[in-house]
């Protein structure tokens, strides 16, 4: 009984945070499902892949991989490269995931860009269980992605409605989270490092291969700037 109230409270607190993700994931998930459908795959593919991989950009790339000749080594390298940014999420969540018990493996499994961003930045009320809150954020997000992908895979190109630009909901969300983080900080060294390093690497390396150089740059700068950042109290 006690447990039920705790869960209910956490779900109630978590749900509003996931509403933008619902819009974004349904749109992107359906796009992904439709893409698989018109590429000749049955709905089982997007359905199972959305459940097991649960990482948007890689799933789109995986469609092209499935249509190409079998290349296991290349597939694994590609997956590691596209998903490398999760290493940073893990390092940032080491403390926050402590003490979440049996939920921890699932929280790590479902740590996509969006779940990480919410779970890291949300101000969870004192009386809400943090573990359950993060669990529901992750579960709801995965459910949105899974259901969107499956529906897209089932309906295929039957869906025609003018949703052009709806994917901007993800950009808006990351802008808001970035801004919230910015407003909380006293100094903005690390935020600036992130924006400038990615923008510079994007210009230098292009849209398809700028993430790894960006991560390397961010690590270098944060390491070199450690003393000034810590001294200036630029950390939360």
């Amino acid at each position, binding site marked *: 009984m006690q447990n039920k109230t705790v869960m209910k409270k956490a779900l109630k607190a978590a749900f*509003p945070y996931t509403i933008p993700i619902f819009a974004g994931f349904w749109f992107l998930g359906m796009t992904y499902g439709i893409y698989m459908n018109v590429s000749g795959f049955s709905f089982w593919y997007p359905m*199972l892949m959305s459940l097991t991989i649960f990482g948007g950009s890689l*799933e789109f790339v995986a469609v092209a991989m499935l249509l190409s000749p079998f290349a296991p080594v290349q597939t694994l390298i590609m997956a590691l490269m596209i*998903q490398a940014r999760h290493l940073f999420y893990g390092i*940032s969540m*080491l403390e926050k995931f402590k003490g979440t018990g049996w939920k921890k493996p699932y929280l790590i499994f479902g740590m996509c860009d969006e779940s990480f961003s919410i779970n890291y930045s949300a101000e969870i009320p004192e009386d809400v269980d943090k573990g359950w809150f993060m669990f529901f954020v992750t579960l709801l997000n995965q459910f949105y992605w899974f259901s969107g992908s499956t529906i897209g895979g089932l309906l295929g190109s039957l869906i025609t409605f003018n949703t052009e630009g709806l994917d*901007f909901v993800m950009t808006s969300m990351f802008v808001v989270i970035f801004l919230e983080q910015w407003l909380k900080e006293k100094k903005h060294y690390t935020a600036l490092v992130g*924006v400038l390093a990615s923008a510079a690497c994007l210009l230098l390396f292009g849209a398809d291969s700028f993430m790894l150089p960006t991560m390397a740059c961010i690590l270098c700068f944060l390491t070199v700037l450690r003393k000034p*950042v810590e001294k200036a109290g630029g950390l939360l």
Partner: protein
Amino acid sequence: MTLTQEIITVALCVLGTMATRFLPFLIFSPKHPTPKYVQYLGKALPSAIFGMLVVYCLKNVSFLTGSHGLPELISITAVVVLHLWKRQMLLSIAGGTICYMLLVQLVF
């Protein structure tokens, strides 16, 4: 590709993803104190990551051709202004998205 090859391909995508998600937790177990440098990174990284994710969302925007990234710039400005004004996450996100949809569907 045969069905087995397809299953292996998807499994490798899962493996690659889970390796990047689980690795930090496997290396730094809660039983041992996390090195100071990693603790510092855990605190310093998120702001940089959120900046990186904003740029990541905009990676395919062309500033030299087409609409020159104007719909994106205008809508991001709308998000920031709305958010500084009302400080309501959902309102800022919805406002920015609607603004962008109107711009790309009707104006540009």
